[in-house]
């Protein structure tokens, strides 16, 4: 008998036929997302009992905006973290897009120029992140910490701290009713599809799982990493656009704390902070969870600043679970 532990040769298990080509999706869904889904549903039920008006229409709009903005940013963050990176500048990019892009509103530009301009800014800033990360041998952590502050500083210099107000009514559309949810749903569906069905999406798991193997297999690692940061920037800008709608003003401090919320949503949703495993769907559920907590606690007139506390604790719990899972796997 061999001393060293090897997995038994279990042909019968390996031969289990699964006709559906989405076996991977099914398995992941079974393990990771289910508990969170249950928490979310449970939370909705609890909140609707505790607070009157939780399920009212007006509140629904608030919740919808909040969940959508966090959700959209988190989806971008998921892609970045899947490749083993991180983007601390998402909040700054969001703010930059709407503040600098919003200068167009001040100058009277029409909405069909302002919106694309905002998206363009998101892409451009994301591109800068990607460029620096793939060319300079400095961790993404440091780079995006630096760019976060470069972008925020630039915002303050250009806007001089002034709010942009008033905002013409037609900007409200993106922020009212179920529109934010629709946008979120579209982005969600798109990226779930991409991460499950396209070469680009699947290769992201390879890059995060074992970058060396990906390189050996000819995966265009550098390009894909670039794309991922551009997407993150783009989605941050999009989230900002939703945020603008219906609030009536644009402030330079927009988006503060979004990086933390996004990372929290990603980690809580079951994506490993080390990269290589996770799901967009899980992140979505994670951001719903956070969004609900935010909205619910506001309704209960709890000091909104407690959000940071809960978010922080949730992050620690989630990464501890992740770390324990990794430890268990290593032990064998």
């Amino acid at each position, binding site marked *: 008998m061999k001393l060293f532990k090897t997995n038994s040769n279990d042909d019968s298990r390996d031969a289990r036929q699964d006709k559906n080509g989405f076996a991977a999706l099914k398995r992941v869904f079974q393990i990771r997302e289910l508990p969170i889904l249950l928490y979310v549903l449970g939370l909705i039920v609890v909140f609707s009992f505790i607070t009157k008006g939780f399920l009212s229409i007006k509140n629904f709009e608030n919740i919808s905006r909040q969940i959508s903005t966090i959700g959209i940013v988190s989806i971008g963050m998921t892609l970045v973290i899947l490749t083993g990176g991180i983007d601390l500048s998402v909040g700054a990019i969001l703010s930059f897009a709407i503040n600098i892009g919003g200068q167009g509103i001040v100058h009277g530009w029409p909405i069909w120029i302002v919106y694309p301009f905002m998206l363009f800014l998101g892409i451009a800033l994301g591109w800068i992140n990607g460029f*620096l990360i793939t060319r*300079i*041998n*400095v961790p993404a*952590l*440091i*780079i995006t*910490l*630096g*760019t*976060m*502050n*470069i972008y*925020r*500083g*630039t915002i*303050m*210099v250009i806007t*001089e701290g002034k709010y942009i107000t008033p905002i013409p009514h037609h900007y409200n559309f993106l922020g009212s009713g179920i529109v934010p949810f629709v946008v979120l749903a579209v982005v969600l569906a798109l990226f779930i599809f991409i991460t499950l069905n396209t070469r680009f999406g699947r290769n992201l798991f390879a890059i995060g799982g074992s970058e060396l193997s990906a390189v050996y297999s000819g995966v265009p690692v550098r390009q894909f990493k670039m794309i991922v940061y551009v997407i993150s920037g783009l989605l941050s800008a999009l989230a900002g656009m939703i945020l603008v709608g219906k609030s009536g003003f644009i402030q330079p401090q927009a988006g503060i*704390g979004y990086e*933390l919320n996004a*990372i929290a949503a990603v980690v809580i949703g079951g994506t490993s*902070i080390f990269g290589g495993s996770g799901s967009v769907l899980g992140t979505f559920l994670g951001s719903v969870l956070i969004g609900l907590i935010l909205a619910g606690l506001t309704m209960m007139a709890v*000091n909104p*600043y*407690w*959000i*940071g*506390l*809960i*978010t*922080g*604790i949730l*992050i*620690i719990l989630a*990464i*501890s679970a992740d*770390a*324990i899972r990794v*430890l268990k796997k290593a032990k064998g």
Partner: protein
Amino acid sequence: MRKRSEKVLSPVTSQRKILYVLGMVNVLIIIILSFLSPTFTTYGNLTAVLSRMSELSMLAIAETIVLISGGFDLSIGSIMALSGALCGKLYVMGIPFHIVLILALLSGVAVGGLNAFLVVSLNLQPFIVTLATMSIVRSIVYGILKGIVLADFPEKFLDLGYVYVFKIPLLFLIVVGTAVVIIILLKKTVIGRYIFAMGANERTAYLSGIFVNRIKFFVYCLSGLICAIAGLLFTIRIRAIIPDAGINAPLEVITAVLIGGTAITGGKGSVLGSLLGILAMYLLLNGFNLLGLNPFWNIIILGIILIYVVGQENILKSLRQRRLIQSR
């Protein structure tokens, strides 16, 4: 030929080089600013700069220790805010002031202990752990203060801000004092050596018999303590307690510390370098203010310098290794 390359290869000389350069940079800034602005060289302005530097300098000292040990601490700003907030809140609640002070300091140690616990017991990355504790502690601060700014303190305490010893602000002297103590700790004591060793190569340190986990606790708790002291200094200086205190600290401090020659991977560092980095930052900020420039240029420049410095260090490191391989 060999002699020259060997001189360069001593850690002391390369550190000295950085200090020298940084010192020159500071002198340069001072000279330029004194030409550009007459108010710059006034006693009032210079002592104001030194005072304003005090709490961030303390945070820089704390962060230097943590980075040298191979760790990372993003919660420094939040701990600073916490000690101030606790100070105010507990005093308002009627607790005797000296006990309030002790509790405020202990809160810093406690948060440090929490950081260390999570890093050690669950083997989590310090970046994520302190990112989380940063926000947890910050929201505790918000919760304590509920958005209000407190301004009710014993006059004697606050007046420390006006104390000058040999014409230098007391607050700054406290910083210098702390710096001296920490420098002695790092350079001359056994535990200081252990901290460097751990940062240089944790496995080697462990196999050489060092209780790595115990030292991590020590480092994070010490950092927490120093940040708590920084909070008190801040409160004295502005004579109030702000919930947003230190919210930008991580970036500014880490940039200054990295510029000052401390390596992000650990094993190398200088408290003096970090302080010179903070000095440079504040001189620039002061200059911007006096010249009427938007002070937010500060963080833009910081972000650029951060990326540049760490990038340079990496490039230099690989260049140095290649040169070493060839020279052998």
